[in-house]
């Protein structure tokens, strides 16, 4: 469910295209650089690589860091054609970081990768990063907890998507809790957190206040 949520979220960022954004078209226009992890991992194993592959850590027994993956991100952000079409306010979407943990990387290595991405994407290029981490609620999984908390402390905005505490509902798929971590808001009395409920539709998500689902009104 959270994976679907992340994909749907980026669509609702541009409300004028309520029918969804065609990622294929965006990729052809050069607006989207897409690293497909599954396909690329096949290249790592079955094709000889001249230069370090972004997913090089899959081949190495003791991969210590995700520097090749960061270098891929940095190269992708470099302006093409000598700066004519420079990236303006880029957005890096990472889906998802928990997969890197299950592929054998340590939580600190993943946090370092995100730190370097922040330095490049957020500070140099004035962009944003949206990263997804799963929380299974398992307190025994220390690595995932370190990753989740470490990422939370680096974030300005935390979106927690979880199921309804009362169970499954056909019309309300879950609730989203938004937590602002920066106090530098225009008014200090602003709410630090908001909770919405949502329903995932075919190509978009509809949000509403708690208890205000169209199905029950």
């Amino acid at each position, binding site marked *: 469910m*959270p994976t679907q*949520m*992340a994909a749907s*979220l980026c669509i609702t960022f541009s409300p004028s295209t309520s029918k969804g954004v065609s990622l294929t078209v965006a990729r052809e226009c050069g607006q989207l650089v897409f690293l497909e992890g599954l396909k690329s991992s096949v290249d790592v194993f079955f094709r000889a690589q001249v230069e370090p592959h972004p997913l090089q850590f899959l081949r190495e027994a003791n991969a210590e*860091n995700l*520097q090749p993956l*960061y270098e891929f991100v940095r190269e992708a952000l470099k302006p093409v054609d000598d700066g004519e079409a420079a990236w303006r306010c880029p957005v890096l979407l990472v889906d998802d970081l928990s997969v890197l943990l299950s592929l054998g990387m340590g939580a*600190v290595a993943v*946090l*370092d990768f995100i*730190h*370097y991405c*922040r*330095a490049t994407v*957020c*500070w140099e290029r*004035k*962009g*944003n990063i*949206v*990263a*997804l*981490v*799963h*929380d*299974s*609620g398992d307190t025994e999984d220390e690595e995932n*907890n*370190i990753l*989740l*908390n*470490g*990422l*939370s*402390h*680096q*974030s*300005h905005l*935390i*979106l*927690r*998507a*979880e199921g309804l505490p009362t169970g499954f509902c056909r019309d309300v798929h879950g609730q989203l809790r938004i*937590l602002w*971590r*920066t*106090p*530098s*808001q*225009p008014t*200090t*009395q602003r*709410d*630090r957190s908001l909770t919405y409920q949502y329903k995932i539709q075919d190509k978009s998500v509809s949000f509403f206040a708690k208890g205000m689902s169209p199905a029950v009104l």
Partner: protein
Amino acid sequence: MGAGRGKPRALPTRPQYRASAEGGSGADPGGEAGPAWSGVGGAGDVSRPRVSGRRTGACGLLPLPPTTAPNGSSGPSRDSVEWEGRSLLKALIKKAALGLVYYDLFRDPLNWAQTGKALPGGPLGALQAMCKRTDPGPVTVALDSLSWLLLRLPCAALCQALCAMSRQHACRGGGPAAEQLCMLGLLHRELHGPGPTGALSSLAQTEVTLSGTAGQASAHILCRRPRQRPTLETLWFSVLPDLSLDLQGGPPLESQPHPDPHTPQVDPASHLTFNLHLSKREREAKDSLTLPFQFSSEKQQALLRPGPGPATSRIFYEPDAFDDLDPEDPDGDLDV
């Protein structure tokens, strides 16, 4: 986007801050997450503190009441995901910084860029080198964050390095150690177990733990001065957008519900179709009733003094024609 639950865990002392700019391009308020200052993994945004090349040991005024340690040697400020502490640390620096030297380790803490400008020994080596470069005299080092160091170094090594730094600085300065080097560190309490957190706490003279209620942040300040009793104090504060610190006296009023004194007490049994009230005689009878299975003092006395009379019980049995009672063998009629 973090999906799931996060559990909610800068010593406000002498505020002479040091941070040093290395390649910093001056004030750059734009951008989503610019580097902070003395950035070991810092994620500053908006305004950076004033950067100047002057290094001074001058002391600034503290907004906090003097009960907090004036001569603290070091202390972690513990925050959590819900109540973040970075803004408090920045506010304290801004309040008191007269000469600020800024070390920017945000962009390349692990030397991935291989520019050749990195100091040997990683971020800890950089920290030690920075302390060695300072002029002798009172100085404060602010670290954002200690958690970053603690995740990458063994806890014992970090503690030893912190102690060694303050000792070395004291030796160079010639004054008592407590007045020479003051260290502020930001620690994220969900990231570490009780062991490392406790070890760092034991090094500290003052600990500030951040939490809050009803949208208002609070700081619980535990102060351990040598040869004095530890003191615990709670302050409510907020950090304004220009990084100034606003202290409030007590918890926010909305969180203290008080009963309305003008509401009359309503008797719920007054408008019923049946009577729930007791008369005086009924009430007396009810109060004097002892419950059968309640062990009262009267029952205890009765058991302790077994007397004749109702204490013994007898069974009366009338045999009919088919009974064949034999007192010697009462079970003789059984066909066993």
